[in-house]
């Protein structure tokens, strides 16, 4: 284990331990719910940063992969009567499988092609879902379309905490989501600072030399796409069991950009940036709620401002300040 992995892992464990104490301090259900949402989006942002910041794959299909995880849970619990605990890894695997297919189709191509194709694929799936008209079964007297149609799935079976913990069910959900956030974040650290991350640094520095040394760019990109898709899908599955719904609103462009803003604000190519960015964006949106419906405008403005003024986000700014301090002190010493 290299020092970089060890230090980041220790930091991550510290963060997770602190997060584990939150329910002991915070009793309000609303606030706990907000922290759960933060952990879900942070997990998606973390995976997106691995993919775009480190592997250089600008995928716009992240919410599609998230939705596949959520729909996987919704459909396997509704139609097959599966336990949600079993359905979550199943949904995540479905995302990973989808990523294999999308990856084989797109990842040989150059940056802009990848972005456009993944965007088009996500939109195509949305169109197929909302244009479905035939009923698959009837549930509770209502028409249930196979992929849920425009209304999606509701009243998905929960994790059973409403029975075992009664009024405190949200605490049970909190720890499940925390566990998934923890796995996702730790996995991202291992990928970024491990062999795959090294391969991508080499490919970014000199694609030709890296390829000459036997690095297969397309294969590395597909592997990282599938890994991140698994965890993105797992997060989507957790979303479905927590909110007990999954529907086409998951594909909203505004949600995609909200999470992209977390990645950009926190800092592409960092390790901790997306977590920080997710916290910042959640707080900003919370403040903006009092000012009316300005969330989308704010997200748009923040994206533009950060890309123009601070393309490496808060983490990049931190790195630059640290470097300047180091320079100043070393100059002072000589």
């Amino acid at each position, binding site marked *: 284990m290299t020092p970089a992995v060890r230090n980041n892992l220790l930091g991550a464990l510290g963060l997770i331990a602190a997060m584990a104490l939150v329910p002991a301090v915070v009793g309000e259900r609303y606030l706990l719910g907000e922290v759960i949402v933060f952990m879900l989006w942070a997990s998606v942002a973390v995976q997106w940063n691995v993919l*775009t910041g480190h592997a*250089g794959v*600008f995928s716009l299909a992240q919410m599609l992969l998230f939705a596949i995880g959520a729909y996987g849970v919704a459909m396997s619990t509704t139609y097959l009567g599966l336990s949600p605990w079993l359905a979550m890894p199943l949904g995540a695997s479905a995302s990973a499988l989808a990523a294999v297919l999308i990856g084989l*189709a*797109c990842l*040989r*191509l*150059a*940056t*802009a*092609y990848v*972005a*456009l*194709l993944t*965007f*088009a*694929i996500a*939109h*195509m799936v949305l*169109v*197929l879902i909302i*244009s479905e008209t035939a009923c698959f079964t009837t549930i509770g007297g209502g028409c249930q379309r196979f992929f849920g149609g425009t209304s999606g799935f509701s009243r998905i079976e929960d994790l059973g905490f409403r029975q075992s913990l009664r009024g405190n069910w949200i605490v049970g959900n909190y720890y499940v989501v925390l566990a998934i956030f923890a796995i996702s974040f730790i996995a991202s650290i291992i990928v970024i600072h491990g062999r795959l991350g090294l391969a991508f640094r080499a490919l970014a520095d000199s*694609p030709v030399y890296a*390829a000459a040394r036997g*690095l*297969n*760019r*397309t294969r590395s990109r597909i592997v990282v796409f599938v890994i991140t898709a698994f965890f993105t899908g797992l997060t989507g599955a957790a979303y479905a069991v927590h909110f007990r719904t999954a529907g086409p609103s998951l594909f909203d*462009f*505004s949600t995609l*950009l909200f999470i*992209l*803003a977390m990645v*950009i604000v926190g800092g*592409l190519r960092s390790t901790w940036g997306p977590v920080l960015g997710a916290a910042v964006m959640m707080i900003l949106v919370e403040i903006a709620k009092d000012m009316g*419906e*300005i969330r*989308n*405008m704010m*997200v*748009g*403005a*923040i*994206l*533009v401002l950060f*890309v*123009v003024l601070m*393309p490496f986000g808060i983490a990049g700014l931190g790195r630059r300040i640290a470097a300047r301090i180091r320079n100043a002190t070393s100059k002072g010493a000589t």
Partner: protein
Amino acid sequence: MDAILQIIISGLTLGALYALGAVGLALTYGTMRMFNMAHGVFMALGAYGAYYVAEVLGMPLVLALLAGILTGGIVGALLHVLVVRFMLGNKNFEINILVATAGVGILLQDVLLKTFGGFPFRQPVQVSGAVDLLGTRVPWQSLLILVVAFVLIGAMALVLTRTRFGMAIRATAMNRDAARLMGVNTVNTYLQVLIIAGILAGAAGVMISSMATLSPEMGTNPAIRAFVICVVAGLGSVGGAGITAFALGLIEAAIQYYIGARFGLPILLALVVVVLVRRPAGLFGREEVVRS
């Protein structure tokens, strides 16, 4: 026979709409390696511009159409002056500009939503009625779309090939540094390119809204078609984008007629993937694609 004529007419109309949308995108990518995610919202802005002039100010339709086109051009210029100018030459320009224009897109779409409301309504800037042509009824609006598309795209082609200013654009697209050494002001060239792309998008928006309805997100679907067309043609290939647009328009019309409207985009995308597996740089692309 009748069905085939119908398919050809609606295919050509679709193709003309797609070409209006895609050619501008291809031009911007070809000259500055910039992909504009806000392109769909530019279309919507053009459509609302025409609507505003016709409905609220009560101007004649021709002026309203011009106003829509002008709106697109102005928004393109503003995008350059306020955002793109500061990002030229940055590291990671390609990813950053995608993010920035996506941000601009959602911002402007929200402005439209706040100004005009979310309910779709009818575009007044259109002609009604139809004419009999070879035994099939052809709506005047379809013919108008074809004419507008040919006039605008033809004008753009003339400008690009015949004028000094078009030569400067093409020189910048071929080799930015060499163009600058020859005295081309490439920053100005970028401004001009974004204005041209905006004009085409504005016109596309007015025409698209006349076939469907006006709504803030009306540009999303056509913009995705335009993305797909640019990718198939090979990013940056302007002529290729025009040809591909008409080809895909005809294919889509045939799919909609024989299989169903729902499967238009999915089958198109499947075709696209097949094309890209064979030719990773697109049909007309001459660009390097990093392979390993």
